[in-house]
């Protein structure tokens, strides 16, 4: 059968089946099981109304249970068994085997870098773009152009950026933008300014930001002016984790400054960007930042517009300059939105697969967890270790899951 025809039939059967199910089951409930007439009419109506929600919910609950909830437990079980031994229970053998693999630790380290850098830069650029575009008349157009990469598939983005990173042998015209720009540097004063002093300044700013984050995260835990009762156990844990991550970034960025200063850059030689360890991971992250910035911008721009005008007016009357207004009045008021954007992007990053799969396939030390898992599951057919690494991804998502559920509960109460 032609797939298009099959698709059409599926739509008709699927949609018709769903609507038919809802219609008929409701009819059955109202006219056969608990008819609203006779001596028990009132009781029957009440009973029917107790059952009806479950009729409405059943297909969704069934699909959710089968396609999302059950696999979590099935994967957990698979990660504790050995497929080659007929699915025998092996305890944590898969995990210890995985922890013994250098490729896994490479994926973990890279994933941690992705987890910090991509949300940080996406949110940062998004905030910048939101703040800037809200101020100008053609901001709407600018926004939709920055937002556009959201519609492009990760695979499409991989092709787009592979062209940017493309390399031709020395002596030929470069067709990748990055190499063309790179070859325009010749080691003169301009090159030193752009490739050494500017990155060092940026790193210093980044390090300062990280220091500020640590300060903000730890201040309520140390200061006396804040009552300790306001911070729950989770508050302590989250703030601790945040400052640890920030401290790691601070350490990395400070460590990079002297090495960047002393590095002798290979001017005039075209580089194969995707094979330079560490930097190639950064180049892959750029792709995701490029995609996610639009998302951050759209949401943060809505949040910025929701800020009450009076607070800004009051600040202006008090003599605050634009930067003070932005950092001291606006940012604190949209902090909860920033957290939401950050966590949403974090989840995207944890699942990132297509970009790495299409651009380097984990070669040259660019492995990430999701691609490692795919490798194990479908290339080496090692379901145990593959499931174990899937469980690691699940474990990393769990804090966000708990946090979301906690917030949702608070709201519906």
């Amino acid at each position, binding site marked *: 059968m032609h797939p298009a025809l099959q*698709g059409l039939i599926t739509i008709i059967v699927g949609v018709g089946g769903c609507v038919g199910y809802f219609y008929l089951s409701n009819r059955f409930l109202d006219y056969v099981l608990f008819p609203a007439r006779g001596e028990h009419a009132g009781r029957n109506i009440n009973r029917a109304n107790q059952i009806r*929600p479950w009729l409405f919910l059943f297909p969704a609950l069934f699909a959710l249970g089968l396609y999302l909830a059950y*696999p979590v437990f099935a994967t957990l079980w698979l990660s504790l068994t050995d497929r080659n031994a007929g699915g025998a229970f092996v305890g944590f053998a898969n995990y210890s085997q995985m922890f013994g693999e250098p490729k896994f630790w490479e994926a973990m380290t890279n994933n941690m870098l992705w987890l910090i850098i991509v949300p940080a830069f996406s949110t940062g650029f998004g905030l910048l773009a939101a703040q800037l575009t809200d101020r100008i008349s053609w901001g709407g157009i600018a926004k939709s152009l920055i937002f*556009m990469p959201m519609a492009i598939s*990760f695979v499409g983005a991989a092709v787009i950026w592979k062209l940017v990173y493309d390399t031709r042998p020395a002596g030929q015209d470069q067709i990748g933008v990055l190499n063309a720009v790179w070859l325009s540097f010749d080691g003169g004063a301009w090159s030193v300014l752009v490739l050494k002093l500017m990155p060092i300044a940026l790193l210093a700013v980044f390090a300062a930001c990280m220091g500020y984050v640590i300060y903000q995260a730890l201040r309520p835990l140390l200061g006396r002016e804040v009552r300790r009762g306001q911070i729950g156990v989770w508050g302590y844990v989250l703030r601790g984790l945040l400052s640890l991550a920030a401290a790691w970034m601070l350490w990395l960025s400070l460590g990079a400054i002297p090495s960047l200063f002393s590095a002798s850059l290979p001017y005039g030689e075209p580089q194969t960007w995707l094979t330079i360890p560490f930097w190639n991971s950064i180049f892959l992250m750029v792709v995701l930042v490029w995609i996610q910035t639009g998302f951050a911008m759209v949401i943060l721009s809505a949040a910025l517009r929701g800020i009450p005008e009076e607070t800004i007016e009051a600040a202006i009357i008090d003599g605050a300059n634009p930067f003070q207004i932005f950092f001291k009045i606006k940012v604190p008021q949209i902090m909860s*939105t920033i957290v939401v954007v950050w966590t949403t992007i974090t989840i995207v990053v944890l699942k990132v697969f297509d970009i790495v799969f*299409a651009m380097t396939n984990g070669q040259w030390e660019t492995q990430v967890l999701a691609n490692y898992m795919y490798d194990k599951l479908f290339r080496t057919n090692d379901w145990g270790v593959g499931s174990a690494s899937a469980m690691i991804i699940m474990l990393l998502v769990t804090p966000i*899951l708990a946090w979301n559920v906690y917030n949702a509960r608070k709201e519906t109460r």
Partner: protein
Amino acid sequence: MNMFSKKSPLTWAVHISVVLLVALWLFPTVGLFVSSFRTADQIANTGWWKALFTQERQAPAIRISGEEAEIDGRFVISGNLFESDEVEISKWGTSSRAPEAYAPGETVDVGDGASLTVTEDGAFSLAAPQSFGDSRLPRVFTTATRPPEFTLENYRFVLFDPGNREGMARAFFNTLTVTIPATIIPIVIAAFAAYALAWMRFPGRALLIAAVVGLLVVPLQLALIPLLRLHNEIGIGKGYLGVWLAHTGFGLPLAIYLLRNYMVGLPRDIIENARVDGATDFQIFVKIILPLSFPALASFAIFQFLWTWNDLLVALVFLIDATGETTVMTKQIVELLGTRGGNWEILATSAFVSIAVPLVVFFAMQKYLVRGLLAGSVK
């Protein structure tokens, strides 16, 4: 209250920064787009950013061809090297070792008593005392400035060439076949569930809402092996049915979440009035809630459409079998990246074919997409 008042230099700084930011964000995509309209030879020789301007470059060798004519006892072949008349030759040659040996207008001896002249506009005339017969005619190397040149040949080759086994036409229809049912079915299922969660009272409702929120972030990576096994056991195997079901399952949490949040905000009076008038829940849902929820339905439909169209992982695992008959565009492009890594004209065109539809949807329905994003994340 505008903190950058009109005449302030800050306004200019803002304008310039936004222009730079937009340019930076647009540049990579434009590169691919422009490349998809260039020939393989153009892409390989110059950066795409030069394609927009008149440029001087060395063209590949052109072998002279044409009808022989006898003029004044000499046998002459003449014609023009180029189809376009805006080309201007600055140097030419007859061997790859010295491709820039001669100036335009020069007459050169090419052996066997034959002489060749190439003028500035590409017109050539090759003359010899005897007939050329079947002998190989000389090649001409040119360095010429030529205006921007674009071609639709790549698109014809990628989409319509029946001889191209790596073409995108079939993958395009396969993707469409995956996408449409996978977008519509979850909407129907989720809409009923969302109504129940928003407007019906029953024990355990709050718990179910929390569960949906929790499932929103469960990585679908966990589902791959258990579900593939399940599909194999119940006889679905790899194929369209499997991928439709999988996309439905994975899309449901977001669908229920978005629709429920929207439906909760609908005015209570309408629903209560309908109840008082004797409408059943089913009637209320179909006649009142569904039409009113159109914006939320549209938001989710766009999300799910973009997600299923752009998806690679679910298709790899649940759809594409060893025969490759059911390959989707994302998979096809990854394949091309492996086999045709250097053939940018094919890669760029194929990628653009797959990007084009989401881009159109994006620009046409951006309003709903933004609305859905806001409803989905800002509380």
